[in-house]
């Protein structure tokens, strides 16, 4: 395969006068799981949102599949085969599981809807049982499954996941991570994963980046990063 699927070079992003990203370089190759770890407020979510054009990068360039998407409006970017499950799940609480999934399929032809939905159901059988339940009444784990399932409904090539393990019990986290691994292995889906749960994320991912204060300070394969003493000290202390 040629070239990376996603390539950021020298990307900066601002919230008003606050600089949240300070020149980020990052690459994701097709078929890879790449994880981004970092402390609270490091700019991980900002990076995910900047890829989607909200906020837009002020400097630098974002290439997706060889195309420059830096200045495109969000809705156009999301039509190109990217999907994001944003931080905090953000499912539609008053709408049913079914409607949430339909919302995810908004950008693609309805032709493939049934097949994609079945794929999501094999991944998360729980969603199938809860199809007519309102999103807001699902348990936290089910909501997370729905958020990922909804993102998958657009049949993306690149899936951006922002903290899918947030607030979930270890067993459910393992279930979600298992699903990500299965998707990647079976369908070749490329995943960029933001995680606080550094240990599990690095074990899952092919490669990882460490973000500190809006800049990448370390990069390497998952195993490599796991072995580094400074990573152990900063992110895995007292961990698993």
């Amino acid at each position, binding site marked *: 395969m040629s070239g990376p699927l996603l390539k950021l070079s020298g990307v900066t992003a601002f919230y008003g006068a606050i600089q949240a990203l300070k020149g980020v370089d990052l690459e994701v190759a097709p078929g890879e799981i790449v994880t981004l770890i970092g402390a609270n407020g490091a700019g991980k979510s900002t990076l995910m949102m900047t890829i*989607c054009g*909200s906020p837009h990068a002020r400097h630098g360039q974002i290439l997706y599949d060889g195309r420059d998407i830096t200045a495109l*409006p*969000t*809705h156009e*970017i*999301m*039509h190109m085969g990217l*999907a*994001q*499950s*944003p931080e*905090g*799940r*953000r*499912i*539609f*609480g*008053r*709408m*049913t599981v*079914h*409607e949430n999934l*339909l*919302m*995810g399929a*908004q*950008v693609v032809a309805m032709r493939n809807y049934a097949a994609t939905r079945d794929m999501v159901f094999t991944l998360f059988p729980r969603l199938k049982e809860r*199809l*007519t339940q*309102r999103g*807001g*009444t699902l348990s*936290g784990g089910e*909501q997370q499954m729905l958020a990922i399932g*909804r*993102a998958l409904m*657009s049949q993306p090539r690149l899936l951006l996941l922002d903290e899918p393990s947030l*607030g979930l019990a270890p067993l459910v986290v393992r279930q979600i991570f298992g699903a990500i691994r299965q998707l990647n292995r079976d369908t070749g889906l490329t995943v960029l994963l933001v995680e606080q749960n550094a240990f599990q994320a690095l074990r899952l991912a092919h490669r990882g980046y460490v973000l500190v204060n809006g800049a990448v300070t370390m990069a390497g394969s998952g195993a490599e990063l796991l072995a580094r003493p400074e990573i152990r000290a900063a992110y895995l202390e007292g961990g698993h």
Partner: protein
Amino acid sequence: MSATNVAPTGTDDPGSRQLLRRISKSVAGGNPFADAALSALVAFGLFAALIGLRTDSGPVGLVLTPRPWALAGWVGAVFLVRLLVLLWRQRTRPAQAYAENRRLAEGLAHLSRLLAPALLLLALALPSFADRSYLDLGVLVLTYVMLGWGLNVVVGLAGLLDLGYVAFYAVGAYTYAIFSTQFGLGFWTCLPLAGALAALWGVMLGFPVLRLRGDYLAIVTLAFGEIIRILLINWASLTGGPNGISGIPRPTLFGLRFDASGGPDTFAGYFGLEYSPTQRAVFLYYVILALALLTNWFTLRLRRVALGRAWEALREDEIACRSLGINVTATKLTAFAIGATFGGFAGAFFATRAAFVSPESFTFIESAIVLAVVVLGGLGSQFGVVLSALVMIGGLEMLRNALSELASGGYLGPLGALVPDPGQYRMLIFGLALVVVMVLRPRGLVSGRTPSVALGRRREISAELVAEGRG
């Protein structure tokens, strides 16, 4: 238990402060008589001047007429109502009340499935048995139903709080008024025009407010409504200023007019009927009924397609919508435009029915009433709009008629003075009804939301059944 333990005993706690303390103690202790007496006291304070005194114009300026009976009646009524409410509440425990409320919600949801077709049949058949005054009332209610349905797209589905909806009503009305009187265009030609121009204004309003939500949006839309009204007053060369435009032609049925001339181009003449003004009233009734049903049909269709679903999603979470590739700008603008179109249709109808438009018909209170109809019905519920328009507009009007009959009929003897003059109290009753409904059913009369897609049997999900636990 009696009302006397409110009264000061005089010896042990003389000061008014102690009295208050005693009252609040027995109120807090759940003594319903004490509570009701306190309510009556508050009512007395409120009503002493408002109801107890009336100003009449005497030979020199105004004279004050005391009305002790009216005052006593109202204070007594407050006491009784409060007492009954409290006794009723003591009878039912909170858990029981919850279950009751829940049963009521389910009942209403169930009822709506049966009631909606029944109401539709009734609406279709109304002209065959109702007399002229009920027809006019029907037209009034249907106008508000139509406006409510139009606003429901913006507020109920897309969640954009619009306090200036009357602006689109005005644009529609003036479009027809101007095009018909200046260019001699007919109603059916102008109707789409009125809708289109209102939609244009909707988009024009939409652009500047795209980034606003909630309270901020509400304020700007409120201002927008006022701008339109002031424009209408001041652009006198086009709009006739405060005098408005009169002599607006009536609609025709395939070119047939409704008047008494009896020629072959009139409805009565063509069909060889005796002319009667009721014919036009019936025709107007069916026009607004058709327009309202069109609005409803269109909205119900929209809810099932991607756009309608995107509106509802937008109301819940804009960021999530963006991340799913929804063009938030376009989605909001279409909501404004479509809602405005329906407002424009209703406006054109208003102009042709009244044959006269003036800026006075398009004040903020109209926006408020339409919004109240939507909110009372339950945001986003089409059937709720019908119910609340029936109750708030139709019911109120009937109450008003009944009251004036009661007051003027002399059935009550001296107590007739207690019956308020319904014309003056219309907004008061409207407000009271609003408060009562909102207290009893905080999410509106029909608070369930029907999913836009269903698997097999459609299931209504009542708002009361589920506590939302959003992450």
